[in-house]
């Protein structure tokens, strides 16, 4: 059965299945969400108004048998945080179930006329609109529990916490993990507020009896799958017992700190003296010592990398899953907090309230920078989540994210680009990532430009990756490769083995070709990725973005970052070169 688009109209509570138009037939994941948003959403619309849409799409290979680590879902729309196009990508249980229902995408549009809230229940038989008034004001932990009790077959739950209900700009979208915990987030860009504006508290997806995913060429798919699986399971970083499996993404904390690039105390230093206490190594020690929680946890069935963890409390009981590097930076080093237990407690609050952890921690850091709270005050930081939960005026400001909080409290050190705050790599110390932060259509985003092999990217021998000169071309290549991987449904972390093992790269492309029937090889990846970027950049141009939006914050040009005492030196011209080809 050919994939369908499920269009859900909240203004009259109706839905219909549509054929995927030929112009979109080749897309999955991010490629599909961005194309739909670019065509169906007015770039000048208010993100919370009736003309924005939330588009949800599994990747090309999601839902296929044993495609490794392929459970990623793309969420797209116009972002309340950046005002531009947004694709936010999540693990969890949703991708495979949506794909197995035969759906290429779900488009959520309109707003209920009766101002009521709904739970949408999607099964092979269609969509049921159930009133959600009993779930309002509830956190995602309780919502997931209630919905798994109410609906059989352990469905995927896509939901928003109180912050999404109030349509604040730092609202993320939660997806439950295999244990029905809400820690997998399409966090960035405030898409939870876009979902809230449609009057939808949660979407229940039960794929029982669904048609499954059609595979055009099973032999090719299996060949590609094997090559990719072999690459993942043999690489030091992604194999069982490898870096990601043992320490999670927080394996980076000590490395980035040793390099002097760890955002610390609202991006005022690149070295945090307490980094090792909040690192992946310390999580591994804590799990062993407390006899609870775990490392090597998978965010969805079929992940063979398993970078997630479950952090235990002092008594060894599961507290929250996962504590990631970005979270430990934003709620830890960037707030001057060196206590993992507090970082875990704040992560729990974020997951329950429906906040993106990166933006939430960076927001607290900006608030601290205003003098309202001391850096390192972990009790004070934790208590701010009560303000958000109670939706006090302060809580509402904090729920709006870094930029709004900086404006409300008179802070000039505002680590945002296009309104979205920076993740865990200081651009003054790691300048290559700064080029990507500045120019990606998504706002400052560390997942926008993943490295791929130079011979594959076609940049090998053409640029010197050690000099400032090559950064524009490399950033574009990385962004294009990432846009492609974000469309596959594969987790971005497959980028590590396929960088070092060429058969892995070929295997990824072959598995996609096998599923879709398109003739895609490794050589096509960059051009396909660039098509997606062009659509996204064009949306932002129509929304009013200019070159001035592709710049790091001003303070990074004059405030020297210890320990290397560096400022941002990449020229505006170099930044403008990244996407000069779009308009030429």
């Amino acid at each position, binding site marked *: 059965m050919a994939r369908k688009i499920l269009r859900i109209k909240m203004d009259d509570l109706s839905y219909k299945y549509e054929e995927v138009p030929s112009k979109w037939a080749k897309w999955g994941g991010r490629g599909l969400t961005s194309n739909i948003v670019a065509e169906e959403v007015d770039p000048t619309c208010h993100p919370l108004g009736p003309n924005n849409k939330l588009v949800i799409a599994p990747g090309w290979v999601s839902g296929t048998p044993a495609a490794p680590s392929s459970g990623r879902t793309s969420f797209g729309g116009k972002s309340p945080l950046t005002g531009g196009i947004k694709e936010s990508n999540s693990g969890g249980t949703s991708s495979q179930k949506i794909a197995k229902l035969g759906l290429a995408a779900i488009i959520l549009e309109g707003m209920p006329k009766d101002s009521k809230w709904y739970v949408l229940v999607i099964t092979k038989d269609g969509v049921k609109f159930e009133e959600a008034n009993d779930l309002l004001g509830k956190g995602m932990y309780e919502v997931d529990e209630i919905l798994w009790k109410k609906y059989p077959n352990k469905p995927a739950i896509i939901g928003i916490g109180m912050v999404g209900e109030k349509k604040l700009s730092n609202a993320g979208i939660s997806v439950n993990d295999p244990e029905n915990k809400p820690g997998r987030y399409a966090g960035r860009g405030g898409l939870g507020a876009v979902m809230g504006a449609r009057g939808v508290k949660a979407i229940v997806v039960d794929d029982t009896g669904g048609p499954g995913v059609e595979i055009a060429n099973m032999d090719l798919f299996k060949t590609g799958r094997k090559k990719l699986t072999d690459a993942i399971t043999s*690489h*030091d*970083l992604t194999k069982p*017992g*490898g*870096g*990601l499996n*043992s*320490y999670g993404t927080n*394996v*980076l904390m*000590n*490395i*980035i700190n*040793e*390099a*002097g*690039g760890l955002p610390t105390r609202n991006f005022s230093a*690149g*070295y945090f003296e307490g980094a*090792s206490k909040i*690192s992946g*190594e*310390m999580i*591994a*020690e804590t799990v*062993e010592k407390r006899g609870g929680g775990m490392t090597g946890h998978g965010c969805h069935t079929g992940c063979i990398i398993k970078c997630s963890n479950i952090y235990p409390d002092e008594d060894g009981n599961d507290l929250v899953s996962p504590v990631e590097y970005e979270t430990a930076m934003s709620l830890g080093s960037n707030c001057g907090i060196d206590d993992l237990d507090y970082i875990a407690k704040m992560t729990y609050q974020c997951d329950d309230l429906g906040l993106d952890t990166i933006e939430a921690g960076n927001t607290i850091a900006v608030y601290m920078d205003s003098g309202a709270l001391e850096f390192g005050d972990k009790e004070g930081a934790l208590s701010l989540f009560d303000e958000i939960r109670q939706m006090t005026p302060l809580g509402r400001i904090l729920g709006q994210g870094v930029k709004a909080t900086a404006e409300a409290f008179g802070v000039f050190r505002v680590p945002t680009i296009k309104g979205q705050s920076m993740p865990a*790599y200081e651009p003054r*110390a*790691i*300048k*290559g*990532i*700064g080029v*990507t932060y500045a120019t990606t259509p998504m706002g400052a985003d*560390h997942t926008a*430009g*993943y*490295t791929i*092999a*130079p011979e594959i990217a076609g940049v*090998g021998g053409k640029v*010197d*990756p*050690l000099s*400032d000169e090559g*950064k524009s071309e*490399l950033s574009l290549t*990385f962004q294009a490769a990432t846009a492609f991987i974000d469309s596959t449904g594969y987790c971005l972390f497959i*980028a*590590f083995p396929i*960088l*070092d093992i060429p058969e892995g790269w070929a295997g990824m492309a072959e598995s996609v070709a096998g599923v879709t029937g398109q003739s895609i090889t490794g050589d096509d990846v960059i051009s396909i990725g660039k098509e997606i970027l062009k659509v996204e950049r064009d949306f932002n141009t129509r929304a009013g973005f200019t070159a001035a939006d592709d710049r790091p914050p001003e303070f990074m040009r004059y405030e020297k970052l210890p*320990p*290397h005492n560096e400022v941002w030196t990449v020229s505006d011209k170099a930044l403008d070169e990244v996407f000069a080809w779009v308009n030429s």
Partner: protein
Amino acid sequence: MPTINVTLYGDIAQYGSGKQLATLDLDLPQDANIGLLLERIRLPSEERGYLFVNSVLHDVPGLNASHNDPLKDGDHVGIFSISHMWPYQYRQGIHLSDTLKAALEEKGVMKNTYRE
């Protein structure tokens, strides 16, 4: 006699009597270098990943570019296990020692590992 502060990250912390993290202060002779330090803590090169001296990257997994790099009193050395990851895009533009820079220009800077 120079004293060098060393932190070992990951399972190599066992060479400093730790589990996942170990910090030690080592007294080394005047002409100390990184090779000597690794010998002193008995860390085999095949178990050594990224290596930093005072926030400057001196070595990467599978290369032994740093062994002749000198150390001086008060230096801090951070050493990671080979399973530690550091994707290229998150290290593009960081400070490298001259010897490592030359070695990477030869080997290809964007790889995650240089082990055979």
